[in-house]
């Protein structure tokens, strides 16, 4: 009996591994679940988490970059007017809880976890288009700042200018590095495919 195609699962898994591997993993999970959707999706999520952690373990530079990008995203969300986005990150961010009630270690942990989740989401959403997406995100803050400054005659100082230009530069550099790492993965995958031969 033909099973559902589960195309979304394949796309979701491809955030954590190469598209070719994501397709065969989704096929394996579909075959095993035999149409039981809950079991299928539970296994897809579990597999994605494992693959994600493996990627991070084998690419510490990428992990650092994701943390950096995520930290910047968390930093910015309260400043943007998108309350929904801010609330989405709220559970993971130290901004959302009372800092007085937290120890320094807890504050650091929530911050790192929040940064990692935000960074993973950013990388996943922008896979293959990291530079473009991160540039748009990066430019949103200075643009918002300029609009606010022009509209409300906000006092302009060098410190404010510095703060508003350093973070976007960091985020764009992060995007360039993540892009390079993804390209390397793609090249390795293409080489593997060239070497492999179809089997029945």
């Amino acid at each position, binding site marked *: 009996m033909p099973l559902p195609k589960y195309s979304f699962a394949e796309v979701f898994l491809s955030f954590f591994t190469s598209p070719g591997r994501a397709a065969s993993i989704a096929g*394996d999970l579909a075959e095993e679940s035999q149409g039981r959707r809950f079991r299928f999706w539970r296994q897809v999520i579990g597999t994605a988490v494992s693959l994600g952690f493996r990627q991070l373990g084998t690419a510490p530079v990428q992990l650092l970059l994701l943390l950096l990008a995520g930290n910047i995203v968390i930093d910015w969300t309260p400043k943007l007017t998108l309350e929904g986005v801010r609330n989405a990150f709220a559970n993971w961010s130290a901004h959302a809880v009372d800092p007085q009630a937290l120890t320094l270690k807890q504050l650091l942990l929530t911050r790192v976890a929040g940064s990692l989740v935000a960074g993973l989401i950013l990388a996943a959403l922008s896979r293959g288009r990291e530079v473009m997406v991160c540039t748009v995100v990066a430019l949103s803050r200075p643009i918002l700042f300029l609009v606010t400054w022009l509209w409300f005659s906000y006092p302009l100082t060098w410190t404010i200018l510095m703060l508003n230009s350093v973070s976007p530069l960091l985020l764009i550099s992060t995007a360039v590095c993540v892009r390079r790492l993804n390209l390397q993965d793609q090249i390795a995958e293409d080489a593997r495919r060239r070497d492999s031969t179809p089997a029945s």
Partner: protein
Amino acid sequence: MVEPLPLGEFEHLVLLAVLRLDDGAYGVTIRRELAERAGREVAPGALYTTLDRLEDKGLVESRLGDPTAERGGRAKRYYSVTTNGFRAIAAAQRAVRNLMEGLNILGDAIA
């Protein structure tokens, strides 16, 4: 000769399962083999990350099969043990055999 890479316990089991399954080793059958023969119910994520790691180490290689309707039109990825994989298994087996020597754990001592 290059020293074979040391294997983790789970890597060792996965390599043996791939070896046993011969041409039919892909995600589903490997998991089934591990459950039936080693009594290990393995999460799919753990298996795929281990297979990826073994492939990175050059101990297994993979190739794509034909897409089938029962898998939603997706191809199976078949795994096979490489020459380095064989060497790594042999080295691990030798180490276990040497350590087992003189012990009577399985009922009859290994000479």
